[in-house]
């Protein structure tokens, strides 16, 4: 009776402790914008991969930099090289995720100018000057500084992309989650493969 009681208590504890979730497969999501390489590491259940090592390599295997993820599993590094990169997330205990990044087309970064006024203001100023000169000379060949235009467009796109990146990451997390049909499919495969083995063994035993 006492033994049964202990078993009952232990089973309650086990059921209390358990929650159905997902194993420790680690995933990596990386973005590259100019010199900035940022991303997020997370486990299959969407939990952040905290304080995990991040290493950035060239495709030839040269290590460029390393860092660790923060408490939200995020990281950000600056890479000056334009070539394609390989980002590795090392979660320990043999868990690793890798992601390749295309080479950056342009190295122009937001830190390019060090003036007190912002780039947007500078472009506005430049545009004003252009309009003024246009009025004065009435010339048709107005040229806006290409570099400045790129910086401004980039800033606006970056702002717009924040929500898109968030949605994209959520979508990627959803895709990485274990689906019920995969579990059923896996069990089906096991039964199928072993059924085939049983058939072969039975034939061998008959023959």
């Amino acid at each position: 009776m006492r033994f049964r009681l202990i078993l009952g208590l232990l089973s309650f504890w086990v059921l209390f402790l358990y929650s159905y979730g997902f194993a420790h497969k680690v995933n990596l999501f990386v973005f590259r914008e100019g010199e900035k390489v940022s991303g997020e590491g997370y486990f299959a259940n969407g939990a952040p991969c905290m304080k995990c090592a991040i290493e950035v390599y060239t495709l030839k295997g040269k290590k460029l930099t390393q860092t660790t993820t923060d408490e939200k599993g995020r990281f950000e590094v600056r890479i000056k090289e334009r070539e394609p990169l390989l980002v590795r997330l090392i979660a320990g205990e043999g868990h690793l995720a890798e992601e390749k990044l295309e080479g950056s087309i342009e190295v122009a970064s937001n830190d390019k100018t060090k003036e007190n006024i912002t780039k947007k203001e500078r472009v506005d100023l430049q545009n004003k000057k252009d309009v003024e000169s246009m009025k004065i000379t009435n010339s048709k060949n107005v040229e806006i500084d290409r570099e400045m235009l790129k910086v401004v467009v980039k800033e606006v796109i970056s702002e717009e992309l924040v929500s898109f990146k968030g949605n994209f990451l959520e979508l990627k997390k959803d895709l990485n989650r274990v689906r019920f049909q995969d579990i059923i499919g896996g069990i089906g495969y096991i039964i199928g493969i072993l059924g085939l083995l049983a058939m072969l063994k039975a034939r061998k035993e008959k023959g």
Partner: protein
Amino acid sequence: MHISEGVLSPPVLITGWGLTLIGLTISLKKLSTRKIPEVAVLSSAFFIASLIHVPIGPSAAHLVLNGMVGILLGWNSFVAIFLGLLLQALFFQFGGFTTLGINTFNMAFPGVVSYYLFKRFIGRKNHKLSFISGFLAGFLSMLGAGFFTALSLYLTERNFLILCETLIIAHIPIAVVEGLVTGFIVVYLLKIKPEVFKDEV
């Protein structure tokens, strides 16, 4: 417990495949047609067990059930665990195909050792002793899998003590849970289907 692709050095991967192929050969030779349905059920249980995680502090660990598979199947656990791991790699990208050999050995071998250590104490007459044997099989198989995983990583990384600390000490709580689950299953099977413990493998 599932070592990912790209972590281990080629000699470790080749050794893992070699050991697993030896285990699979013995397993397939010993496997009788009558035992195949049991292997299928336990392989399916192993396949799903990794999806059940237990929160341990800020992290979480998942069940392996290699002790339960080992104590019920003996050498046949190599076939069950190999199939389970192959499908986990295929469907969920747990572990990997190059590491399939070493992962199979790391999880199946402690189960086989448990079979030879504890199977003899499991019987209908003494449920308490059977529960304790089941518990120890689950507990030690889990820690054994942690030890072999640490050893595999050490042969590539050379920081064995830190790995052992992470993989074994951190897995003690989940090993306790695993031991309890195995103990319960052993006692339950003794009540409803005691003949599963009679088969020699």
